[in-house]
């Protein structure tokens, strides 16, 4: 057991290094940071427009830098209404409007794009090594489970690097662009939301790496990885329709628990005890989906 854990950590460390040295991962990491920054920039521009309109209504002077009237915007009933519809929870909407807006924008972007980032960077993490044969240099040195878990941990570490860099990019952009930017509060909430976005993406990473163990074809594993994400989001969306839910509420509510998207709203909640069940379920989902694919990998030729 200890030897297996040690080997998994050795593989994870090497895999992260190998990924960071590859151009593909670097491009995706850069895209991820650019996406986070672009979202914050877009947010500040929208905020500036809203503030200009608000300044006209309140008959106060306009400012060149957005964020001077952030508090007024965040307290506006229109924004509250929009957010309430998005999270389907009035109390949660009220709580979110008291948090640093940069952290909210970052979290929204991270939850939306991290699964895609995972599919694009990690779907061939295992199948690629089986296809190239490089796995054969490792499998007489450690067992298959330790190697595959090492790959999972390595790709999870790569994901954490992407989300961390995105959070840093969002913080720097907010610091530069917003007048009423709370550096410490924003940093804390960005870190907190980076962690929950990681958990959400980890469930999808488990799915993608589970699929990656089913085939030795890189194109197939990429296609199946993306397809599995589409299916997971699509089926969850279908189950979430009122007409489906009303037909068999208990069954549908139970079924939805196995889809990561069902736990997305809980990840927004500020209290750690509120987030814990979703965090636990998402981690279990990721591990279970990975383990299902691993059963096939254990029995096949590498």
């Amino acid at each position, binding site marked *: 057991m200890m030897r297996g854990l040690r080997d998994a950590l050795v593989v994870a460390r090497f895999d992260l290094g190998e990924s960071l040295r590859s151009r593909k991962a670097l491009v995706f990491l850069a895209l991820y940071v650019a996406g986070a920054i672009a979202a914050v920039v877009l947010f500040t521009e929208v905020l500036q427009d809203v503030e200009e309109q608000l300044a006209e209504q309140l008959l106060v002077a306009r400012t060149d830098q957005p964020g001077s009237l952030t508090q007024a915007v965040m307290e506006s009933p229109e924004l509250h209404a929009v957010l309430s519809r998005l999270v389907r929870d009035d109390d949660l909407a009220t709580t979110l409007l008291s948090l640093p807006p940069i952290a909210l924008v970052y979290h929204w972007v991270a939850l939306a794009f991290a699964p895609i980032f995972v599919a694009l960077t990690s779907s061939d993490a295992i199948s690629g090594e089986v296809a190239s044969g490089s796995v054969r240099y490792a499998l*007489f040195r450690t067992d298959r489970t330790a190697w595959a878990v090492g790959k999972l941990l390595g790709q999870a570490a790569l994901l954490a690097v992407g989300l961390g860099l995105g959070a840093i990019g969002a913080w720097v952009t907010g610091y530069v662009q917003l007048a009423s930017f709370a550096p410490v509060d924003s940093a804390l909430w960005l870190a907190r939301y980076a962690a929950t976005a990681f958990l959400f993406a980890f469930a999808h990473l488990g799915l993608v790496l589970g699929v990656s163990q089913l085939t030795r074809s890189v194109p197939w594993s990429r296609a199946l990885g993306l397809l599995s994400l589409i299916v997971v989001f699509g089926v969850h969306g279908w189950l979430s329709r009122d007409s489906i839910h009303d037909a068999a509420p208990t069954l549908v509510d139970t079924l939805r628990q196995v889809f990561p998207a069902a736990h997305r709203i809980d990840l927004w909640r500020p209290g750690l005890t509120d987030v814990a069940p979703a965090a636990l379920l998402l981690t279990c989902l990721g591990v279970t989906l990975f383990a299902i694919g691993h059963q096939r990998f254990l029995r096949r*030729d590498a």
Partner: protein
Amino acid sequence: MSSAYALRLYDVRKRYGKTVALDGLTLDVPRGVVMGLVGPNGAGKTTTFGIVSGAVRPDGGTVDVLGVGPFDSARHAGKVTALPQDCQLNPHSSCKQLLTFYARLQGVPDPGREAARVLDVVRLADRATSRVRQLSHGMKRRLAVAQGLLGDPALILLDEPTGGLDPHLVVEMRDVLREQRGERTLVVSSHILSDLEAVCDHVAFMDRGRCTSSGAVDELVGRARLVAVRLAEPVALEDVAGVLDGREPRVEGDWLFYELAEDEAPPDAHAALVPALVEAGAKVVELRMGRSLEDIYLESRG
């Protein structure tokens, strides 16, 4: 671990779909020998290596590696290493990083130093910091051989170790393999029979997933008693029969073969017989003990 055999395969079978790769392969490899595995493409050599090193699952039969049963990383990690054929090394790390990773995974006490040692053995010390993707084909091959020499394995499996190497590198590689002789058991497959003849003390011929014959090279080629004399032009057997009386001479093309008697041994026997052959009209251009492995192989193929 007390078995006299490093490797025992009995009635091992493996199919890939409709293709039969191994059809009841039975093979014994004594401890401490360098065994050559010879056979045409598709004979099952690579599949055999895959099964022995745990990458390929056999359909049936018995595999005993180092006297403790079939390959199991818990029992064999660090004791068995392999050079798989046509398997790419992870491309983005440096040579030393890659070998250090393998050594660490293998449980070698000082992985960095061990990586430097084997890089020196395969004459790649000056490329330690080069990325694997920047190496030439021959250098990658030598790096792949280097990873097989890490640590202190009892059994090393080398699938075509000299494939794609320059002639002078082939000679160097032969020296590297010769240095391992007696230290551990090596099983080497190659299409270049002169390479195998130069380094192997045992050989096994494979065809269509079976071992057709095997044994000590000296016995198979008749190195102890059989004298092979190449002549500038063919000679009639009756012209030399008198000189070689009682030594069962035979002529095959421009080669004359005869067996030394029990009480005869080179070089004294050569000193007595060769001048007599020349005197009888034979134009001797080459003299050696035993037939070539190539002849034996071609004979075994019919």
